C-alpha cells in the first residue's frame, strides 16, 4: 500500500504501535495473562484459601482425576451445553426466518417487536433470569407452570426438586436466555442471502423446504458455525443463571463445571482443587478457540 509508506517516511514514536496499545497490554497482562497462568500453577499445588503458603504437589490432580464426581460434573456440563446450544441455534434460526419472512410479507413494526422481545431475554442479567424462572417453576400451588400443567391434567411435576427434571428446567431457561443471540446472527446472515438466487428458485418452482436446505442454509452456514462455537464457549462458562435458579441442586444434579470450581474454593477453601476444575474449563475452551480460529483462517484464505 503506497499510502502507508508516505505516513512512515519519518518515523516518530507515535508511528509505532507502542503508545496506542500500551494501556491495553498492561491491563490484559495483569488481569488476564498473569491470573490465567497462576490458575494453572495453583492446580499443581496444595494452596488453601486459609493459608498464605503452599507447596507443589501432583496430589490435587490425582485426587480429582480419580474422583467419579469430577466425571459426573463434566457429564452434567456437557449435557447442559449440548442441548442449550442445539436448541438456541435451531430456535434462533426459526425466529430469524419468521422475522425475515414477516418483514417482506407483513408489517415491519411487528417484526421489530418480535426481535426486541426475544433480545430482551438475552440482555437481562443472568441472575435475574434464574430468579424469574424460579418463579415460573415454583412447585407450590401458586406456581404458574404447575397450574398450567394441571389444567392439562398433568399433576405434580417436580420441575426443580427431581434431579432429571431440574437439568431439563435449567436447560429450558438457558435456551430462553440465549436464543436471541443466535437469532440476531442468523437474521444478519439471512440479509446477505442473494435475492436473485431466491427469485430464480421461485421461478424454477422450488418449495419452501428446498429453498431453505439448498440455498439459504448453505449461504448462512459460515455465520451459524462460528456462532455455534462462540456460543458453546460462553455456555461452558455459565455460572450466574444456574446459581440463582438451582444453586447446582438438587444434590449436584445441575452443578456445572464453573460452579464446581467455585464451590471447591469458597465452600471447601481449596484453591488448588478449584483451580484444577478451572484449568479443565480453560482446556475445553482452548480447544473450542483453536477450532474457531481455524474456521476463521480458512474463511480468510477462501
Amino acid at each position, binding site marked *: 500500500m503506497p*499510502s502507508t509508506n508516505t505516513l512512515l517516511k519519518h518515523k516518530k514514536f*507515535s508511528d*509505532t504501535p507502542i503508545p*496506542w*496499545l500500551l494501556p*491495553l497490554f498492561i*491491563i*490484559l497482562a*495483569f*488481569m*488476564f495473562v*498473569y*491470573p490465567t497462568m*497462576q*490458575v494453572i500453577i*495453583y492446580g499443581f499445588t496444595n494452596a488453601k*484459601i486459609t493459608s*498464605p503458603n503452599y507447596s507443589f504437589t501432583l496430589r490435587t490432580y490425582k485426587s480429582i482425576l480419580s474422583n467419579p464426581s469430577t466425571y459426573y460434573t463434566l457429564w452434567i456440563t456437557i449435557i447442559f451445553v449440548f442441548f442449550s446450544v442445539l436448541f438456541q441455534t435451531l430456535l434462533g434460526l426459526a425466529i430469524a426466518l*419468521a422475522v425475515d*419472512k414477516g418483514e417482506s*410479507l*407483513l408489517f415491519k413494526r411487528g417484526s*421489530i417487536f*418480535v426481535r426486541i*422481545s426475544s433480545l*430482551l*431475554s438475552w*440482555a*437481562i442479567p*443472568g*441472575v*435475574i433470569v434464574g*430468579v*424469574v*424462572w424460579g*418463579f415460573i417453576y415454583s412447585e*407450590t*400451588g*401458586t*406456581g404458574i407452570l404447575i397450574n398450567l400443567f*394441571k*389444567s392439562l391434567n398433568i399433576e405434580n411435576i417436580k420441575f426443580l426438586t427431581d434431579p432429571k427434571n431440574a437439568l431439563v428446567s435449567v436447560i429450558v431457561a438457558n435456551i430462553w436466555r440465549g436464543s436471541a443471540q443466535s437469532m*440476531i*446472527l442468523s437474521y*444478519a*446472515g439471512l440479509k446477505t442471502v442473494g435475492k436473485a438466487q431466491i427469485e430464480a428458485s421461485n421461478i424454477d418452482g422450488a418449495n419452501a423446504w428446498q429453498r431453505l436446505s439448498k440455498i439459504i442454509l448453505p449461504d448462512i452456514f459460515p*455465520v451459524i458455525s*462460528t456462532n455455534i462455537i462462540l456460543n458453546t464457549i460462553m455456555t461452558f*462458562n455459565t*455460572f*450466574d443463571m444456574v446459581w*440463582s435458579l438451582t444453586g447446582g441442586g438438587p444434590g449436584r444434579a445441575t452443578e456445572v463445571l*464453573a460452579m464446581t470450581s*467455585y464451590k471447591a*474454593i*469458597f465452600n471447601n477453601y481449596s484453591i488448588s482443587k478449584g483451580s484444577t476444575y478451572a484449568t479443565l474449563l*480453560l482446556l475445553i*475452551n482452548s480447544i473450542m*478457540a483453536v477450532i474457531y480460529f481455524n474456521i*476463521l483462517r480458512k474463511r480468510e484464505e477462501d
Partner: protein
Amino acid sequence: MKKSNQKGAKIGIIISFVLITMFFLGPLLWVLSLSFKTVDELFYVPPKLFPETFSFENYRQALWQADIITYLFNSIRIVVGTIIGIAIVTIPAGYGFSRIKFKGSKVIQFLVLIFQMISPLIISIPLYRYFSKLNLLNNWTTLTLIYIAIALPFATWTLKGYFDTIPISIDEAGTIDGCSRWKVLTEILMPLIIPGFVSVIVIVFVTSWSQFIVPFIMISDSRMFPISVGLVNLQSSSDTISTQLLAAACVIGIIPTIIVFIILQRYIVSALTAGAVKG
C-alpha cells in the same frame, strides 16, 4: 392459487409471532404481575394472571427496606466507570490496530480475542488471593479494573472493525493539512466512529450490568453490592411470603436494561453482527 398461498403464509407468520412473543415475554410479564401482588394474592389457588390492584408498595419496600436503591447506584457507578475506562483504552487501541501496520499485528489481535473466551471465574481466583493480600477486596477501583479487562477484548475488536470501515484517505487528508496522528484521531476520526462506539458501549453496558461472579467473589461488604449480587443476597434471605418483593427487585434490575434497549436497539443489532458477518 397464489393469493390463498400468501394468505396461509401470513397466518402462519402471525401465529409464530404470537408464540415467539409469548415464550420470550411471558416469564417477564409473570414477574411484573407478581411484583404488584399482595401477600394474600400470592396464595390464590389457582394463581390469578393479573394483580387486583396496581400498588407500588412492593417497589417502595424493595427499594428502601431491601436496599435495592443502594445496589442500583452501586451498579451504575461501576458500569459508568467501566465505560469510561473502555473509552480511554479501546479508542487508541482500535486506532492502533487499524491504522498502524506492524509485524505480528494480526497474531496479537487474535491473542486479544482469545481472552474473550476465558471465564471471569478463572481470572477471579488468583485476583481474589492477590487483592486480599493487598487489602484491595471491597474496593471500587480494583473491581472496575476487572470489569474493564473483561470488556476489553470484545470492545477493542469491534472498535477496530469500525475504524477499518473508514477509508485511510481521510487520515491522509488530515496528515497533509499538518495534523498529528493524535489530532487525526480526535478531530477527524472520532466523530465518524461515534455510531460504532455507541454500539460497543451498549454491549459493555449490558454485560457489565449483568456481571455476577466477579463482584460475588470480590465484594463481601453488602453496602458495595451491585444489583446482581444484591438480588442473590435478597433471594437467599427471602421466603415465599416475600416473593412479591423479590419480583419487584427483579423488575427494578431489568428496567435500566429495557431503557437502554428501547433507545439504542439498532446499535445492539449492529454490534452483535459486526464481527460475525464480516468475519
